């Protein structure tokens, strides 16, 4: 058995700063106390009391992790690969990630100091924010967006600044909208295409002016590209590939969506060495290293997962076209989302706001969708439908939605 442990043990945490807050306070940090709970949570609680629900609310693949990947993790556990790994992640995995990013997107990262294996993109995001932000730094976040972005910025002491996007532009962020929100405190721009919740993608030509803005105003970009493989029309444009962007972008990606590995919590961050080294420092003190069995599984995914990945992507694509055609037919207009596994139809024509629509659809027809306003400004008037569901369920959901819409 190869020893995957580091030869030098990580240093113990620095001596505790004397926390001497004298004033009496509540039990919880004020920033956390002020943070609203995820809008999705309330809806989830509602759904879990019901039976016979068809859910288009699930933001994760309906496939189980391919067997050869599961088996690789089982094997590693049997063989006793149960120690910590290097803080940045197993070197073999970083080499494979580096090669994959190079082959897929044409950007090269040195596996020795420009790649960090994280516990999902979620950790990558948190660590990235903590590594780059100082109190009061502003981060521009195109919305509607994934629910964790704003809290991650706030928890790192930053100030999230939403940049609205709209259906008229297929939810692609517009350079003018970014420019209008720039201040001397603007530190970074968070991009996430293909997008959860809208399914929007942005091609190279559309991203070029945004890259130019980043360079001109010396902004960092954090690009969450977890859905990159799930791009069905056109090519995915990797943000660090754009001119001037490699040295100012933290690329976040992972295994959850492309390899159906959500529960493994496997992600990675790639970027310029100083930023990745800073992130690794935080990761080292908070996470130590990503779980070893999951890293073993990720190695197998990168080595031999291409065929099954492409099979899954083809099936998502078929469902995508079916659901877009279906929603448009029943009168819930829906732009042609080119990525991820979400569509974001408008419910404005029904006269209901998105929460009422979602709640009544659930109560009356037992179909769960997520109200668009859970994802921030620009989401009102829309619902998110995930097509990570079987064809039979998608069709039945469409039938029920049609019945519901016709009754309104």
């Amino acid at each position, binding site marked *: 058995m190869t020893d995957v442990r580091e030869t030098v043990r990580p240093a113990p945490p620095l001596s505790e700063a004397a926390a001497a807050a004298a004033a009496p306070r509540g039990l919880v940090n004020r920033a956390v106390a002020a943070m609203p709970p995820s809008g999705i949570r309330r809806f989830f609680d509602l759904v879990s009391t019901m039976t016979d629900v068809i859910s288009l609310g699930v933001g994760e693949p309906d496939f189980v992790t391919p067997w050869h990947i599961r088996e690789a993790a089982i094997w590693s556990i049997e063989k006793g690969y149960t120690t910590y790994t290097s803080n940045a992640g197993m070197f073999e995995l970083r080499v494979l990630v580096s090669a994959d990013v190079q082959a897929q997107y044409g950007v090269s990262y040195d596996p020795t100091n420009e790649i960090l294996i994280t516990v999902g993109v979620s950790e990558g995001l948190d660590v990235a924010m903590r590594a780059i932000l100082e109190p009061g730094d502003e981060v521009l976040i195109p919305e509607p967006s994934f629910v964790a972005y704003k809290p991650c910025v706030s928890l790192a002491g930053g100030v999230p600044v939403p940049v609205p996007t709209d259906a008229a532009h297929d939810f692609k962020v517009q350079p003018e909208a970014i420019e209008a929100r720039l201040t001397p405190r603007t530190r970074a721009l968070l991009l996430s295409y293909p997008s959860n919740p809208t399914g929007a993608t942005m091609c190279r030509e559309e991203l070029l002016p945004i890259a130019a803005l980043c360079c001109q105003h010396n902004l960092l970009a954090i690009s969450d590209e977890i859905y990159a493989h799930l791009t069905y029309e056109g090519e995915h444009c990797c943000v660090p590939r754009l001119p001037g962007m490699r040295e100012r972008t933290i690329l976040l990606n992972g295994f959850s969506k492309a390899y159906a590995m959500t529960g493994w919590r496997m992600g990675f961050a790639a970027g310029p060495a100083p930023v990745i080294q800073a992130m690794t420092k935080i990761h080292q003190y908070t996470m130590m290293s990503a779980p070893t069995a999951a890293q073993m599984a990720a190695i197998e995914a990168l080595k031999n997962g291409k065929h099954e990945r492409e099979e899954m992507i083809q099936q998502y694509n078929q469902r995508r*076209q079916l659901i877009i055609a279906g929603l448009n037919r029943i009168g819930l207009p829906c732009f042609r989302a080119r990525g991820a596994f979400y569509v974001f139809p408008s419910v404005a024509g029904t006269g209901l706001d998105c929460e009422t629509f979602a709640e009544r659809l659930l109560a009356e027809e037992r179909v769960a969708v997520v109200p668009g306003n859970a994802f921030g400004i620009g989401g009102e008037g829309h619902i998110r439908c995930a097509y990570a569901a079987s064809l039979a369920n998608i069709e039945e959901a469409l039938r029920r939605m049609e019945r519901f819409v016709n009754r309104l």
Partner: protein
Amino acid sequence: MKEILKILERDARTTPEQIAAMTGRDPAEVRQIIAEAEAKGILRRYKATIDWERAGEERVIAFIDVRVSPQRGTGFDDIARRIDRYPEVRSVYLVSGEQDLRVVVEGPTMREVAFFVAEKLATIEQVQSPSTHFLLKRYKEDGDIFDDEEPDRRLAVVP
């Protein structure tokens, strides 16, 4: 065409309209592609996968490996033809290894299958030393797992 074939392989009852929506084509075009595949003998039949055990019907399946002395001119083909004409024979494969043909036979009882092997298969002149393996349990067939399906373990709403 291959994408359409794969969809039908997964579920032969997918309608041309559904396939059209799934692949971004016109239903008429899908119908035409299917008709073409049928005409060319690519799409041979539309069949159902049935768990007969659950339906309460007993069917006995045996895999019989036989050695065959190939014939001048036609190799194994003539013998294979002689075997595959029996309705009891579900499949016949030419395989590599010690045996030459793998024959899958189905019958209502073990006794009948055994008789078929002894009287029909083993008596063909070129067939030697058939070895019979009765199927005891079906775990997976043609890509379908016959146990109960894995439940959907995902939470109903996930960000």
